[in-house]
């Protein structure tokens, strides 16, 4: 009998909170500094040094909790998580164990057009460790170098319920979570810089079974694509193993992006025992309702609210609205365009089409592009006014994207103005028809392809600048008239 399996995924996401200084000392959190230059005796774990909590960290954690519909704990505390590792200066990480700041939240994802609610178990504040630099791979490097710039950078660890059932769902959760964190202004969420990191817990079980299967944890998935692929791969691996009668071992895996496989990290010689206990250096936190209310009152618009607004006020389809609201910068761009160009659907087509393609291709974020909303709008107006064709517009847009020039200037410089003058086109069409009598015969004997040939010839002659609607009309008149 064939057993059908389902995949069960839970994610642990580490988001770097957007503060100027570290969580327990005044060192800068800026990315990319020279090694060991943003370090002080506190974050280097020197003897006798003591932590003092950055208030902004708590504020951002509360803000995140509210954005994730979570309960904010009235009382919470910090604990020490004990383990030795060369990048962990005190040999304990200050974290939150049994009293996290946020509990019981959720977010909604859309999957195959259906809304699905994913539970969020908890979110807690903690400090980041430093960075180890290896020569090549961690398993083969003869030595490693320790850079403590990251040590003490504030993190919020957000733990989901095992509510996802595929790589696609995991990806949708992660994309939505990122959007929420960005909208709430709590994190930069730059996966390449490590300010948003993700570990996935994956297990499989026969459909209908209640208990969860044995899970493995895939570490450090640093892109959405990696997350989706790794989860799907790992689930498939587990199902195949079970079908072969093997047992799944609870272990930690890494994802090899190049070969597209998960690999077991060499098992440690000892079981983890973090020996958590309350950090006596840090007094507990009391979070008053008043504090929460104050933060709630200052909450910006969140992705779900923005999506609803685009649908209600501009009639944008749900799918488009959900894509536009994946990042606050995209939404801001879109909103700015809408002010002067109310055709929301046309705008969203361009944003989701050409804009997204070029961003992806050049690997940049929308806030970095040289095209400004007014540029996009003037270009769209040129299409509407018949000055350029949609096809030419794509070229113009790419040029705008690369150079930041106005569309008018580009059209001017490159001579891309659409040819709509029937007299100019008439002459051209007459000449083409005259020199291709065979194709004319084909057309007349009912071959539709032949018409396309003539359109192509006109476009070729005009280097794509001919107004296609007018060309079609004139061609038809010519061919039918002479027949």
């Amino acid at each position, binding site marked *: 009998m064939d057993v059908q399996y389902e995949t069960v995924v839970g994610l642990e996401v580490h988001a770097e909170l957007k503060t100027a200084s570290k969580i327990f000392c005044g060192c800068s959190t800026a990315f990319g500094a020279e090694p060991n230059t943003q370090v002080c005796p506190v974050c280097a774990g020197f003897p006798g040094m003591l932590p003092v909590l950055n208030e902004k960290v708590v504020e951002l954690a509360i803000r995140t909790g509210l954005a994730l519909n979570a309960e904010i704990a009235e009382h919470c505390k910090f604990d020490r998580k004990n383990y030795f590792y060369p990048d962990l200066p005190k040999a304990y990480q200050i974290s939150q164990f049994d009293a996290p700041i946020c509990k019981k939240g959720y977010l909604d994802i859309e999957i195959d057009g259906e809304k699905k609610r994913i539970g969020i178990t908890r979110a807690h504040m903690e400090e980041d460790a430093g960075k180890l630099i290896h020569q090549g791979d961690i398993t083969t490097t*003869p030595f490693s170098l320790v850079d403590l710039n990251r040590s003490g950078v504030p993190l919020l660890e957000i733990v989901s319920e095992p509510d996802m059932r595929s790589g696609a769902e995991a990806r949708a959760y992660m994309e939505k979570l990122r959007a929420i964190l960005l909208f709430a202004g709590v994190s930069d969420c730059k996966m390449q810089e490590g300010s948003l990191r993700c570990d996935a817990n994956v297990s499989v079980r026969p459909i209908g079974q209640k208990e969860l299967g044995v899970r493995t944890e895939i570490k450090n998935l640093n892109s959405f694509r990696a997350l989706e692929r790794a989860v799907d791969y790992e689930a498939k691996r587990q199902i195949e193993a079970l079908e072969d009668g093997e047992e799944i071992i609870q272990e930690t895996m890494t994802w090899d992006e190049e070969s597209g496989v998960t690999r077991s990290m060499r098992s440690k010689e000892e079981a983890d025992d973090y*020996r958590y206990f309350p950090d006596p250096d840090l007094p507990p936190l009391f979070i008053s309702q008043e504090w929460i209310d104050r933060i709630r009152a200052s909450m910006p618009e969140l992705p779900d609210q923005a999506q609803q607004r685009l649908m209600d006020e501009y009639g944008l389809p749900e799918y488009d609205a959900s894509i536009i609201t994946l990042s606050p910068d995209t939404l801001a761009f879109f909103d700015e365009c809408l002010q002067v160009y109310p055709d929301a659907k046309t705008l969203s087509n361009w944003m989701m089409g050409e804009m997204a393609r070029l961003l992806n291709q050049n690997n940049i974020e929308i806030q970095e592009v040289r095209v400004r909303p007014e540029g996009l709008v003037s270009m769209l107006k040129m299409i509407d006014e018949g000055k350029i064709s949609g096809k030419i517009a794509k070229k113009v847009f790419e040029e705008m994207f690369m150079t930041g020039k106005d569309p008018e200037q580009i059209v001017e410089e490159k001579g891309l103005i659409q040819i709509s003058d029937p007299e100019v086109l008439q002459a051209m069409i007459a000449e083409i028809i005259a020199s291709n009598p065979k194709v004319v015969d084909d057309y007349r004997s009912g071959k539709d392809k032949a018409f396309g040939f003539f359109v192509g010839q006109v476009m070729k002659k005009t280097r794509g600048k001919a107004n296609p609607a007018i060309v079609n009309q004139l061609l038809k008149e010519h061919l039918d008239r002479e027949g």
Partner: protein
Amino acid sequence: MALTAKEVEDLALKARLKITDAEKEFFAEQLSSILKYVDKLDELDTSEVEPLIYILPVSNRFRADEIRSSASRDEILANGPLVEDFHFKVPKII
């Protein structure tokens, strides 16, 4: 509660203390006698007692999110037993 040499070995690994076989025996004996003394606490019924985690009635001690200049890199690295290329150098991880 008496500790065996094997348990001491496990503890020593957790605490990252290399100990000899003789030390395992020696510490097992000493720790066992300390733990036996500590078992005196069993005389007290604490089922209704809240653990005392913080001795002071203080909460919410914060600093403002302001950058203070870090230490100089030389100062941070000065005590390093092995430093290379402005990093602390450690032997292989695995």
